[in-house]
């Protein structure tokens, strides 16, 4: 068990692009353990990305299974994740372990098809929706050096969200 410090803004390192994982070895397994220990130690985060603990490789952990009525694939360690397809969009509120004391609305794809590798290097594919899909997109942004405040949309435009939503459900 090794809880790491979480990098927080304005740490420049959060903006760097993380490199793909190439060796699926014991070192990777230890780092994943640190990543999960750090997620568990913090305030109820449903996900964490490697660069948040200063590990600049493309690895994330997501687990939204603790939420009621939420479609979920359970606890996921995802190495070199890649979104293959997007469908539809939805506004939702996000916060981040690396951006304390701030939440805001972000538009994310509602449904995604995801490809990633597990800790042994086996390929995984998932169809994800809703909260889980949102968490993945938030985490992949971390791997690309993007933080959610870069994507926050104004509350003012949010006034009209319902109209947009109704139009899109009529399709």
């Amino acid at each position, binding site marked *: 068990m090794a809880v790491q410090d979480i990098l927080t803004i304005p740490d420049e390192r959060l903006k760097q692009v993380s490199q793909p994982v190439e060796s699926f070895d014991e070192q990777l397994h230890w780092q994943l353990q640190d990543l999960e220990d750090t997620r568990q130690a913090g*305030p*109820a*985060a*449903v*996900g*964490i*990305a490697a660069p948040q603990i200063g590990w600049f490789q493309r690895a994330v952990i*997501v687990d939204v299974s603790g*939420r009621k009525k939420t479609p979920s694939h359970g606890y996921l360690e995802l190495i070199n994740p890649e979104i293959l397809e997007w469908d539809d969009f939805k506004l*939702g*509120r*996000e*916060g*981040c*372990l690396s951006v304390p*004391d*701030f*939440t805001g609305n972000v538009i994310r794809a509602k449904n995604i098809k995801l490809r990633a590798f597990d800790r042994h290097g086996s390929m995984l594919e998932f169809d994800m929706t809703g*909260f889980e899909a*949102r*968490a993945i997109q*938030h*985490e992949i942004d971390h791997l690309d050096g993007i933080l959610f405040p870069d994507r926050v949309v104004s*509350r*003012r435009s*949010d*006034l*009209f*969200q*319902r109209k947009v939503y109704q139009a899109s459900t009529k399709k």
Partner: protein
Amino acid sequence: MLTLVGQDHTGIVAAVTRVLSDHDCMLSEASMMRLGGNFSMMMMVGAEASAETLNTLLNSIAHSMGLCVHVDEAAGKPHQHIQPNVEVRVMGADRAGIVSSVTSALADCEVNIVDLESDVIGKQDEPVYIMNILGVSTAPIETLQKRLEEADLKAVDVSVSAVETLIA
């Protein structure tokens, strides 16, 4: 707490914040927007100078720019955010009393409103009122829905939903 209102024109924010920065004020949370052709500003300012001093300084520029500005001593500091857990959306033909009916219903349920935005949209001769409230509620969503249904809100569309914040 600084409050300002006046006819909208360019340079208001620059002029006001210039005075404040010249007097070593720290600006924190602020809300500024154009409301019905007026420019409005509400801003928390951290200052060594007294409210009286700031009032005098700001009024000297405000007057020439046609602005009403006021600084009051206020308790409070940054990092006092509370997370909303409910959102209420309202839309309907504009008439008097919509806000009052909706917010009374919410107050009955002891909802603490943390943010309210509204606008009048649609055609000039057929105005539509639209409002979005974020609040903190200890009562379940169903209770709020029931109470809002009981309120007299003919032809006004009201929806209540949970605000779920993803932390990751």
